[in-house]
């Protein structure tokens, strides 16, 4: 999808100045997710596990959207999501994982996710997340 096509799909996205945090231990996925966000004009940072995500918030960081992987060392996505919600963090959290069985998905959602997408992420899946989480305002 070109930048013009994205602008058509989400006319207010460029003006919204959204921010996102990518939480994933895989360099491959970090690179892809950051590129997807950059393509949509969303300023973003990356951390490599759930503990680093929690630490960022403890240090005063804040993001509109968190793309949270499930399987990570030190603190996984389920633990990190629970911890962030316990801290009162209201950022939208979208779980992204290759684990797709219903039980694992349910456990991840119940930790406090706002949405869930199966990896690998694509432009369409990311747009779907943004639509679902009302980051797009129709003019």
């Amino acid at each position: 999808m070109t930048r013009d096509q994205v602008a058509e799909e989400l006319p207010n996205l460029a003006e919204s100045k959204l921010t996102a945090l990518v939480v994933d231990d895989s360099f491959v996925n970090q690179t892809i997710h950051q590129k997807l966000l950059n393509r949509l004009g969303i300023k973003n940072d990356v951390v490599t596990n759930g503990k680093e995500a929690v630490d960022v918030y403890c240090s005063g960081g804040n993001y509109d959207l968190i793309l949270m992987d499930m399987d990570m060392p030190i603190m996984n996505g389920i633990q990190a999501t629970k911890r962030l919600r316990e801290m009162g963090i209201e950022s939208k959290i979208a779980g992204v994982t290759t684990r797709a069985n219903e039980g694992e998905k349910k456990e991840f959602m119940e930790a406090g996710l706002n949405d869930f997408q199966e990896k690998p992420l694509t432009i369409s899946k990311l747009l779907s997340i943004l639509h679902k989480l009302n980051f797009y305002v129709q003019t």
Partner: protein
Amino acid sequence: MDTLIAQLQRRFCDFTISLYHQGFLDDQFTELKKLQDECSPDFVAEVVTLFFEDCEKLISNMARALDQTGNVDFKLVGSSVHQLKGSSSSVGAKRVKGLCVTLKECCDSQNYEGCVRCLQQVDIEYKTLKAKLQDLFNLEQQIVQAGGRIPQVDI
């Protein structure tokens, strides 16, 4: 008579199509190509380089774990293959991903012989893909150096 550029472009298209038809690549590779633009003209090459580094590291970890005959840490092998399955899925490395699924099954059932055999296949398969993608990137370079445009290939 075809120009050099036209010949190279045709070779590029045919080779790309063959990679998909032979199951080396799937739609996710197409998604990566869509993300390549003037801001990041080498995006695909950068991502697949990271993937091949993952392959090397994770296959080495699994081989080391499987070397501990009689005391194999199948949990470690399982976690490594899960990671490799994830990154192969993310770059569209279809055959590698398929072999990771099989390896995971062998691991879950603690089938030592199956794990060893499958890991050898994963190793061969990622190296084959690496060579083929290198050929693809070389073709792209040749087209650009000849003054041509890299064609869009509809799979």
